[in-house]
């Protein structure tokens, strides 16, 4: 016991440049990426390019924030990519009009209703994940792996494998405006990026300033202790999966709006990129440690890196190699940072 006490005390006194680099590694990595690519390509460090890249990052960022909440709880959500695809298709399906045969009418819900219903679908898939994990004690990895397949399968069934192309709606049906999410800009900033910022701020407030945030950190850090302290650990668990589902649905809306089409295979393997962003952002896969700021930095590091490699003309195969190397490096640094502290005595 006294060993650890002495160890931590001496660590604190020698707070130095290494410690600083380790703490802010995602931030320094981002700076390094921007500097290196700016030197390599004159087109990289331009406002328009940054906005384009930020728009790409928005999708992963949204998924990563949801993922981070689940990882903070000590779980994992492999279904986010599929949920993104499913919700995109669902939104597309609603935009095409819902035919009610018995009444002989085709309903064209307004865009706001499409958005609300789509988010509800995301929350529902998340609820299923959470219920499986919390009530039926299915390991998170398996439960969400299952819903990864189910959600993707349902998306393919809904479209028969085809893509909904006409998402713009028409003025006489009163359902125009879906493309606003992906194409429009407010003060020059793409709406997708603004949505990411709003979600990030909301998640940040949730974690830092609400009782739920405290419950989440404590049940991720030590579920037994949290439960005995009166934290409703099951409710917290189900809620984080629902929030992750909602984040995936938001990403699904933004992506299908950006593409003005909704394909059933959209978002395949995006869950892996989201996990990578969370890990690069310094969260611990064991739960209990992680921040919104770190996760956003992680998403930007991965997004800016792969877009940068495209701009300087590196083959996409190499991009995959680089992304993998970054992830491994990040996890390695994580275990250096948390290696000593997390140990039980």
């Amino acid at each position, binding site marked *: *016991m*006294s*060993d*650890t*006490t*002495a160890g*931590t*005390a001496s660590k604190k006194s020698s707070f130095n440049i290494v410690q600083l680099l380790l703490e802010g590694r995602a931030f320094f990595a981002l700076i390094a990426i921007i500097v290196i690519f700016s030197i390599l390509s004159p087109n990289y460090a331009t406002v328009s390019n940054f906005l384009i890249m930020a728009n790409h990052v928005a999708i992963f960022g949204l998924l990563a924030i949801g993922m981070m909440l689940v990882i903070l709880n000590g779980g994992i959500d492999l279904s986010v990519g599929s949920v993104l695809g499913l919700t995109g298709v669902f939104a597309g399906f609603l935009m095409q009009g819902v035919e009610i045969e018995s009444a002989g009418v085709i309903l064209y819900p307004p865009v706001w209703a499409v958005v609300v219903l789509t988010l509800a679908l995301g929350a529902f898939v998340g609820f299923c994940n959470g219920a499986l994990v919390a009530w039926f004690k299915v390991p998170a990895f398996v439960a969400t792996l299952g819903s990864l397949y189910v959600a993707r399968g349902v998306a393919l069934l809904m479209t028969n494998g085809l893509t909904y192309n006409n998402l713009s709606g028409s003025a006489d049906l009163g359902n125009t405006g879906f493309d606003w999410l992906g194409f429009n800009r407010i003060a020059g900033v793409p709406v997708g990026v603004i949505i990411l910022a709003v979600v990030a701020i909301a998640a940040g*407030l949730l974690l830092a*300033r*609400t*009782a739920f945030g*405290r*419950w989440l*950190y*404590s049940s*991720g*850090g*030590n579920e*037994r*202790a*949290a*439960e*005995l*302290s*009166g*934290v*409703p650990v099951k409710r917290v668990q189900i809620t984080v999966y629902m929030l992750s589902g909602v984040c995936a649905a938001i990403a699904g809306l933004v992506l299908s709006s950006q593409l003005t089409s909704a394909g059933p295979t959209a978002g395949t393997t995006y869950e892996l990129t989201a996990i990578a962003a969370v890990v690069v952002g310094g969260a*611990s896969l064991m*739960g*209990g*440690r992680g921040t919104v700021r770190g996760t956003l930095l992680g998403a930007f590091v991965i997004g800016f890196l792969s877009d940068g490699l495209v701009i300087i003309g590196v083959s996409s195969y190499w991009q995959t190699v680089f992304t993998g190397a970054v992830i491994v490096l990040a996890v390695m640094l994580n275990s250096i940072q948390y290696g000593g*502290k*997390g*140990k*039980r*005595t």
Partner: protein
Amino acid sequence: MTEGTEIPNSTPDTAEVVLAARNVAKSFGAVQALKGVHFDVHRGQVTTLFGENGAGKSTLMKILSGVHLPTSGELILDGTPVQIGSTVEARDLGISIIHQELSLAPNMTVRDNIFMGREIMGPFGVNYAEEERQCRELMRELEEDIDPLTPVEDLRLGQQQIVEIARALSVNSRILIMDEPTSALSASEVEVLFKVIHDLKAKGVSIVYISHHLEEALTITDHAVVLRDGVMTAYAPRAEIDLEWIVRNMVGENFDLGSPPDSTFGAPALELKGLSVASHTGAGLAVDKLDLTVRKGEIVCIYGLMGAGRTEMMETVAGRLQPVAGDILLNGESVQGLTIAQRIDTGLVLVPEDRQRDGLVQTMTVGRNLSLSSIASFTKGLFTNLREEARIIEDSIKEVTVKTDGPGAPIGSLSGGNQQKVVIGKMLVTHPDVILLDEPSRGIDIGAKAEVFRILAEHAKKGMAVVYSTSEVGECLSIAHRIIVMRRGKIAAEFTHETTKEAIMAASGESLVA
């Protein structure tokens, strides 16, 4: 301090003593677990090691079995000094240890467990037939009817213990160390075990025995050694000792842990009515139709051996476990069906036994651990009020006197005693009517113990009902108004604070004839 006639000398008699520890000391950081201990293992006899929790018994056994190297001192095996660097080396020297928690793979068969890690290899992989033959041989020697192909999880606990012993014998162990072997056994299984021990003695195997069941240990031991605070305090052959001798040497003069506060008892705060809880092994009851009433301002101490049902009783009252029968009343109202969180809100809290596993969130700071149970009290509308929280944390740190760099310090930076104060402080912040503490003094130093008891006594004076459990008899006779001795899920005896340590210990131990 050494009593008795057999004072271990520096040159052990090799005909009599097979393994001797001379002046062995062991430190973990600044903590001295053993301070120069002499210990003799007698050839073909049972040597029992007595001592309270934290006296250094386990450390000494770990040194003998190669888990730890001593900081200083030497081990003498058959007259020659030896270095035992690992459990494998110890095994090669013929020393085996059977831990309290069995180290068997429950999913594998008896045969596979016995030969785990040293499988007999034939030309085509593992020679199962030969393993099975040897396994049957061992079981015949032990006169136990256990089929080598049974999965270990299908065996009763007592049989699993026999498998452990068979494994030790299969490597030709001459010295067998048994750490609390009977704590989970039924009376008939204990009898079988003792018969096996007698047979082993007859075969020339030397046995080192550790047990909290004093009377039980007295029935089989040939020599007794008592440890206290890392020092050997007494040493004698069986013929010269009795229960009273052991207790006197184990407990010694105690640090003053306070006396019962003169509080006026109010209405009953906590009532247990016929409470029964299933045992986690699935067989029998851990708590058996227990009735207990604790009044406001009263401090009740629950003493009992490991497995007496103290933890199960407390966890059931707190809402972690569900009772199979009976009722729990808080201030006259049943708490049946309430969640842990709701029980905390109504004023019933538990400080769990294992603070690392159940008490603290290691990833959070001291302050956030302290405020974890009372988040609702500083949440206004949607958001938490950080200033209000800081005030609550400051007050709490002062009240339970946590020594820390500040609320932002990581919880791991605190000493064990201060961590325990954080766990207690976290619950006191919720202003409970009844506080249950499961072994609050476990693994903390004597100064911190005294402070914890002082804090509890102060709150009892203000009308809080306090129930704490302990396995150190010295702590029963401190602040408690009433001492309850639990045994096999029932109340075995009840004392006022004017009783003696010997009476309490006698009530908790189980004799074989019972």
